[in-house]
């Protein structure tokens, strides 16, 4: 009736299961990420044009990297990117947090409204860039109609070199301030009510409560969101490419856009690989910051 002590040996051991579960993923990631990056590093030390595969790469040492340092266009691209990142993230943060403060109360339909507001950030950035092109069209765009009474003239948002970048900032803010709002709301909700109650009993002012209870407790989350958005804004390609292709001129040419053009329009492959590596370093620095912070918030090592 009872089962004997020694039984089927067919079962996989814990170690075998662990290997089976981990190996495929790690192999895939190494193959699709690490290997290409090593190849890319190799190419960055060569002069190569991928549209002419017949001509083999020619080793040029660090020439590509030094060329980067002296390339005024590249610095201009970085500048554009930095401007974009600072403006967009600041706007998203302020608007997102502000709206969260407004929404931080119970009202009917809160759940539905929150979901609706989240829709913009779930859309494809490329497609968002596309339909904003229509809205921003100086002739029959919606925005033009709405602000015409104030400006008395058409503003060619995306084709004017002074308004193109702000327009992109506007689109990005439209897409992503809901994200900031979401995070802020979550943070605000997580503050235990009894802290506010204790402060009220001690007759603290509204500002005092905000500064000493709310802010310190939601700061970690906000920082997380800030780092995340900064990383994302820095990488931005899809929306910019579809909306302006970097133009007019190079007024909206972010580093990603510049890299794309260099690699797949001008086919300066070797130099593009070098630039890609520089970007890689920056992104890894930023994302390690993000990941460590994320792990801390999640309560892991």
């Amino acid at each position, binding site marked *: 009736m009872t089962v004997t002590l020694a039984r089927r040996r067919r*079962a*996989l051991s*814990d170690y075998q*299961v*662990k290997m089976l579960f*981990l190996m*495929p*993923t790690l192999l*895939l*990631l190494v193959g699709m*990420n690490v290997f*290409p990056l090593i*190849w*890319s590093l190799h*190419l960055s030390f060569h002069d190569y044009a*991928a549209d002419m*595969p017949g001509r083999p790469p020619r080793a040029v040492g660090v020439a590509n990297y030094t060329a980067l340092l002296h390339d005024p266009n590249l610095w201009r691209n970085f500048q554009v990117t930095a401007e974009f990142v600072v403006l967009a993230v600041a706007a998203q943060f302020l608007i997102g947090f502000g*709206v969260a403060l*407004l929404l931080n*109360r119970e*009202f009917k339909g809160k759940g539905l*409204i*929150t979901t*609706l*507001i989240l*829709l913009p950030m*779930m*859309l*494809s*950035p*490329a497609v968002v860039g*596309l*339909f904003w092109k*229509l809205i921003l069209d100086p*002739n*029959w765009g919606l925005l033009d109609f709405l602000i015409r009474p104030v400006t008395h003239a058409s503003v060619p948002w995306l084709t004017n070199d002074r308004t193109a970048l702000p327009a992109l900032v506007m689109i990005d803010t*439209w897409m992503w301030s*809901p*994200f900031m709002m*979401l995070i802020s709301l*979550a943070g605000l909700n997580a503050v235990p009510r009894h802290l506010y109650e204790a402060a009220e009993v001690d007759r603290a002012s509204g500002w005092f409560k905000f500064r000493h209870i709310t802010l310190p407790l939601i700061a970690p*989350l906000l920082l997380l969101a800030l780092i*995340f958005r900064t*990383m994302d804004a820095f*990488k931005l*390609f*899809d929306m910019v*490419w579809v909306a302006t292709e970097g133009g007019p001129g190079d007024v909206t040419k972010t580093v990603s856009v510049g890299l794309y053009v260099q*690699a*797949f329009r001008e086919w300066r*492959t070797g130099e593009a*690989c070098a630039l*890609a590596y520089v970007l*890689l370093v920056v*992104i890894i620095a930023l*994302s*390690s910051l*993000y990941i460590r912070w*994320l*792990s801390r918030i999640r309560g892991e090592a």
Partner: protein
Amino acid sequence: MNGRLKRTLALTAVGVVLVIYLLPIYWIVATSFKEYGDILARPPRFLFVPTLRNYAALFLLPGQGLQATPFAARLLNSVIIASFSTVLAIALGTMTAYAFSRFRTRGQSDWLFFILSTRMLPPVVVVIPVFLMYRALGLFDTHVGLIMLYTAFNVSFAVWLLKGFMDEIPKEYEEAALVDGYSRLQAFVRVVLPQAVAGIAATSVFCLISAWNEFAFALVLTQRTAQTAPPYIPSVVGSGATEWGRIAAGTVAFLLPVAIFTFIMRKHLLRGATFGALKR
């Protein structure tokens, strides 16, 4: 009185915010249903007679009935590539997440760091060598090529999210199954997976949306055979008179699944958007 005034102001502000966020979306949806004349009307028309012309033009070739238009073909590619890569990413991700959750591995946090950092890389950076690699291997403009890439792209995100879900399932359940006579693998399938279903579903939706929306890789690595919708739709703009109606229709058709999924998964949105940092 102050309380009520505040409340009214707040609600008004909420209303304004809603309008600002939803108006562009409404506009595109409306444009897709407008006749050409209505689209170009100045001032823009809020009221109009809707038409299905634009959608018809997208999916049907003139005079040939239900044929595969270029747009329909691209949309189908998107469906195929997004679905397959999601299924693969979830399968791999679930297993890996379980392994990281239950088995203490040396250097685990470093591995997790590596995995997540692959997700943080700008596509434009990764795409150059992948392009060369694919060209050399004959994977350029193939479904398989893009599926593999999207799987790699999504599995890292899936692992992070799913590990969070797995961590929440107490390990006592598997231990009870182990004591009851099941092997580790059987315990995983019979006891853990059923409880992880909600997490797996939420993660799947995020992977689907991510693959569906992807633009940069598709732009570089595909051309005609395997091209997905995102690089195609904007490319239609340049040809002659801008067919905004059709573009709007294409956009709406493309955005619709995402909207539906977002709504279905609304309870887990916060989690997915923050890589599992926040739950509710």
